[in-house]
């Protein structure tokens, strides 16, 4: 068996739909207990990858191993270990919530004696206990999404694969789902697909960014943020002496470019905490009257746009 610390191992995964290549030699690993964000614009191949990992469809070439089991040689062992929430929650409108979860737990091969306990736990974690006797078709979209999430966790799987779990929810419901993910962290390995960056920032340890079926970046969040920060900008707004300050800043080591327009200065360089300190010191020495100092591109948003617009 391969290294057990990698609970998901994906090697050279390729999937063609006719002539169209949805994913192209994708390889990555997920460690046990990790929360990984699977990011990409719509149509990047996120859903296809998740469908292959869950054994829903077969890849054209490549290999997927879950906890050491090959998805296509031991599909049952793999499927028992995965809780999957597809884009559209797979719920039966004409069943009541509790019966539905009972059905899913048994379908996932949970022993009969454990079913009632696990159903109660899933209801409680997703805060569905109040609506457990209601027909699913009469529930609101947010509740239905929660039922979908409850179905993913009801068999207490090692791995949770969630395909855009917060799409179409109102901000309060999004916050609730995030709180739930925080709760599940640690007891499950979570792979979360999304095109919403704040979601990854809020919940994930690591992000895998894909575009056009290929991985364009794979790093921890700080790693990704630093990557762009390494060569980025700082905006300064001062009250007076802007030209003196600009000249002083040009002499600071680490600064590669200074641009001044009126009372605003744009400094480009390899930004580090040291450099930022030096810049603020220079502003004080020149008595420029520092009003504002901002780092506009610290967000994941820019990395995302930069990485995914190269294709």
């Amino acid at each position, binding site marked *: 068996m391969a290294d057990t610390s990698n609970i998901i191992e994906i090697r050279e995964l390729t999937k063609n739909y006719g002539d169209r290549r949805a994913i192209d030699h994708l390889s990555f690993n997920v460690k046990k207990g990790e929360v990984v964000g699977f990011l990409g614009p719509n149509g990047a191949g996120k859903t296809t990858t998740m469908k292959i990992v869950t*054994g829903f469809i077969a890849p054209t070439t490549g290999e997927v191993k879950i906890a050491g089991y090959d998805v296509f040689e031991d599909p049952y062992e793999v499927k028992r270990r995965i809780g999957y929430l597809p884009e559209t929650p*797979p719920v039966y409108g004409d069943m009541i919530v509790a019966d539905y979860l009972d059905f899913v737990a048994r*379908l996932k091969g949970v022993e009969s004696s454990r079913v009632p306990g696990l159903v109660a736990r899933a209801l409680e974690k997703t805060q569905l206990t109040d609506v457990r006797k209601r027909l699913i078709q009469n529930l609101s979209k947010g509740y239905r999404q929660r039922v979908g999430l409850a179905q993913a966790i009801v068999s207490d799987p090692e791995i949770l694969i969630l395909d855009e779990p917060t799409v179409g929810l109102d901000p309060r419901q999004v916050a609730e789902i995030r709180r739930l993910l925080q709760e599940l962290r640690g007891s499950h390995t979570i792979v979360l697909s999304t095109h919403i960056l704040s979601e990854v920032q809020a919940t994930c340890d690591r992000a895998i960014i894909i575009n056009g079926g290929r991985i364009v970046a794979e790093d921890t969040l700080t790693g990704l943020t630093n990557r762009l920060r390494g060569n980025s900008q700082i905006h300064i707004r001062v009250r007076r002496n802007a030209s003196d300050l600009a000249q002083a800043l040009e002499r600071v080591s680490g600064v590669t470019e200074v641009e001044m327009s009126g009372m605003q200065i744009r400094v480009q360089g390899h930004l580090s905490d040291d450099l930022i300190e030096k810049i603020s010191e220079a502003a004080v020495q020149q008595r420029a009257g520092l009003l504002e100092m901002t780092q506009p591109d610290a967000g994941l948003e820019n990395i995302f746009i930069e990485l995914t617009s190269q294709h």
Partner: protein
Amino acid sequence: MRSILLIAKKDFKQVVTSPLFFVICAFCTIVWTIMYRVFLQQFASQSMMSMMQGSQAGQSLMNTVFMQHISVVNLVLIFTLPALMMRLISEEKKLHTYDLLLTSPVSSTDIAVGKFLAGFGIATVLLFVSFLYPAFTRILADFNWSTLFVLYFGIWLLTALYSAVGLFASSFTESALLSLFIGVVFNLLIWFAGQSGAGSDIQWVASVSNYISVGQHLVHFLKGMIKISSLVFFVSSTAFFVFLSQRVVESSRWR
């Protein structure tokens, strides 16, 4: 086995508690009640006639009333069973619950067989309703129970075939309406398949037609005979359509 029963139980419960099932049951009972009354009246007046003509040999209930009833039941089932089966797979595809089934540790065979059993169970409920008509005729007239049971056993096997066909039609498409249409067409084909070549001069065409003719097999059951060839025909053709459905379910993993 556990998964088969689990899926069968869920689907059976879902269909039997659906408004569609109640509407179809109501429709069937209305048609059967009206027709059965007509058949009984015809039988009564014919018996009266033959008595008045002084003939000793009366007509048998089995060959007149029950046979006519069975053909009406068959005709109604050809159209209504696909309507009940249409949801089995196509609805799952439409609602995306198919994703749940295919990502659960169950095989395509479990899914196909489970759904077939659910469909067959539903068909059996409907057939049981139709059985009540001849059964209660016992209050008015005396007849041989065993012949009636054999006849119903035959038509029960036929509904298994219809259920399998309905399941197969449902596995094709996301559209319930389309699967209803395909199901009805297939049922009609099955019913008429044997009729077309039956009168052929070529020996083997005639005998093949005879073997695949559902009507010919039912005639044996009507006479109170259970022939091995008929059993083999119904069981194998039902299994064939369940197998085809299983292939369609399996194929979605490879697309």
